C-alpha cells in the first residue's frame, strides 16, 4: 500500500509510506509557512522516490484540530492532489497520530487512559482522551490503535481532565496543569504516524473520515448590534 500523508495541524509535515515503511518524510517546525513549504516538499518526496501521483493508493490528510490557516493549506493541497491524480482521499483526526506514537513507544501501560494535547494558541489546547491498546498483540498481525474516548475539544489547559498523563506539546506549554508523558512534551502530530493510522484502519476494513476540517472554534466574527438612536 502506497500512501502520501500530509498533516498541517501544527508543523507542516509530509510523508510517503510504502506499507509500514516510511520512504520519505518532510517536516518544518515553522508553523506559519505551510503554504510555502508544502508543495515543494510533496514534489521533492515523490521525485526522489520515483513515484508518480497516480501510483498512490490514497492521499491522507490530517483534519485537525489545529490553527485554521495552516490546517487549510494542508487540506486544500491534499484535496487538489487527490482530485488531479484521481486517487482516494481520506481524513484522519490529527491527534490520533500523536496517540499512535505514544502507544507505539511502549511508555504507556497497556489499557491505560491518557490525553493528547496540542497548542491551540490563545492560552488554550486542542485535546482528546484515549485508551492505550490492551497489549495482547501476539495474536494480531498488525498493531492495535489507541481507542478515542473523548474529544477532540478546545479549551484552557486548566480545564483538562485531572490525573491523566498527557502526550504532546501542551505538556511542555502548560507543565503546571498536566503530567507529561516522557519524551512527548514537545511532540506535534506527524504525517508519517498519520499515514500509519490510516493504513491500519484501511487494513482493518474500517471506514475513514472525509477531509472536513475540525476547526472547533467559530470564526471571530460578531454580528454588529443595532445602532443606538440619538434622542432629543
Amino acid at each position, binding site marked *: 500500500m502506497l500512501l502520501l500523508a500530509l498533516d498541517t495541524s501544527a508543523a507542516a509535515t509530509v510523508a510517503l509510506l510504502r506499507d509500514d515503511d516510511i520512504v520519505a518524510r518532510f517536516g518544518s517546525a515553522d508553523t506559519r509557512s505551510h503554504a510555502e513549504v508544502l508543495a515543494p516538499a510533496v514534489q521533492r518526496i515523490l521525485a526522489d522516490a520515483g513515484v508518480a501521483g497516480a501510483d498512490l493508493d490514497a492521499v491522507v490528510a490530517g483534519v485537525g484540530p489545529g490553527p485554521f490557516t495552516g490546517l487549510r493549506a494542508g487540506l*486544500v493541497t491534499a*484535496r487538489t492532489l487527490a482530485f488531479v491524480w484521481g486517487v482516494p482521499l481520506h481524513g484522519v483526526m490529527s491527534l490520533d497520530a500523536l496517540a499512535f506514537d505514544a502507544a507505539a513507544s511502549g511508555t504507556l501501560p497497556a489499557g491505560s487512559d491518557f490525553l493528547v494535547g496540542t497548542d491551540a494558541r490563545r492560552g488554550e489546547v486542542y485535546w482528546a482522551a484515549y485508551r492505550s491498546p490492551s497489549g495482547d498483540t501476539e495474536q494480531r498481525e498488525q498493531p492495535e490503535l489507541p481507542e478515542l474516548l473523548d474529544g477532540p475539544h478546545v479549551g484552557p489547559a486548566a480545564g483538562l481532565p485531572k490525573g491523566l498523563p498527557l502526550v504532546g506539546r501542551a505538556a511542555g506549554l502548560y507543565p503546571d496543569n498536566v503530567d507529561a508523558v516522557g519524551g512527548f512534551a514537545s511532540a506535534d502530530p506527524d504525517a508519517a504516524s498519520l499515514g500509519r493510522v490510516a493504513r491500519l484502519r484501511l487494513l482493518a476494513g474500517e471506514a475513514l473520515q472525509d477531509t472536513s476540517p475540525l476547526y472547533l472554534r467559530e470564526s*471571530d466574527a460578531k454580528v*454588529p448590534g443595532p445602532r443606538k438612536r440619538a434622542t432629543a
Partner: protein
Amino acid sequence: MNAVDPGNPATTGGAPGPLILGIESSCDETGVGIVRGTELLTNTVSSSMDEHVRFGGVIPEIASRAHLEAFVPTLQAALDDAGVTLDEIDAIAVTAGPGLSGALMVGVAAAKALAVATGKPLYAINHLVAHVGVGMVGGTFAGGLPPNLGALLVSGGHTEILRVGNIASDVELLGSTIDDAAGEAYDKTARILGLGYPGGPAIDRLAREGNPKAIRFPRGLSQPKYMGTAEEPGPHRYDWSFSGLKTAVARSVEQYEAAGLEVPVADIAASFQEAVVDIITSKAVLACREHGITNLLLGGGVAANRRLRELTAERCAAAGITLTVPAPSLCTDNGAMVAALGAQIVLDGGRPSGIAFGTNPSLPVTSIVLPEG
C-alpha cells in the same frame, strides 16, 4: 519547470495563444477561469457573499473557510464548462496578492498543488493588474489593450488609479485610498442607514429617489495642502480617503434624530453617493490628464454602480478620455482575469514563479508576476 513557449504550437496545442487556468481567492469569491490567449473559455465563480450578509461586511475567516470548500468543485465546474482537461492546460496563474492573507493562502496552496500534480508551470500574479488584464478577454477591447491606458479600480477591497504602460511589465500606481475602500464606505454607510449588505446596490437604488445636493458631505483629501499643483503635487494629489465621510453620515443621521425629525434616508444616500462618486471621478480624471492617459478602464465590483458609471463617462468625455467598462461578471473578482493576465505574461515571455513563493497581502502593483523565489 519551463516557461511556456507561446510561439510553439506543440506547447499551445496549435491554437492561438496559450491555454491558461487562473485561480482567484483574494476576498470572498473563489474563481477559476480558463482562457486561450484572449479567448474566454470559462469564468466560474463561487461566492461566499451570502455568508457575510449578517455581519455587514466580509469576514476573512468565513471567506477562507468557504474557499477551502469551494475550490475543488469550482475547478471541476470550470473544466467542464470550458470543455478542456488539465492535461491540455499550458500554465496555471494564481492571485498572490494583494488581498486577505488567509483567503489568498487557500488559492495559492491549491494552485501549487495543482502545479505539482499536473507538472504545469505556475505564475503568481498581481490581483490589481489582473483587473486590467481582464480587458483582453470577453470582447472588452476588441483590438487588444489600447495605448495610453489607465485603470480606475473601485471595489469593496480597493480604490486605485493605475497607469498601464505594458500589462506584463510596466504598471504604476498613481493614487489609492489611504483608509477604507470605496465599497467598504458604501457597506458602512448602508449599515448606518439600515439598508443591509452589500451596501453599494442598496444605496445606488435608494439614491435615485433622493436629492444628491441635499447635504454637502466632505470630499476627502481635496484641500490644497493635499492636492498641490500639477507642477508641485501635494502628498495626496490622486489619493482618496473615505473614513471621514462615513463619520459625517453618522453625525448627520444623529442630528436628525436628536432634533426629533424623520431621517431623510434617500437624501442622505444620494448625497453620500454623490460625494463618493464626485471625488473618485474628479481625481481619476485629473490623474489621467496629468499622465497622458487617453483610455480608461473602469473595473472592480463598484463599476456596476449606476452613478459612478454615469459621472465617469461624463467627465471622461469632457476630458477627451475613452472610457471602457468590462461586463459586470468580469469587473467583480474572478478567475478569468487571473487567467487573462497570465496569458499576457506568458505571451510576453515571462518566467514562471516556481512553487516556493509566499502570498503577499499588500503586494505592490509594480510586482506583476512574482519571480522564482
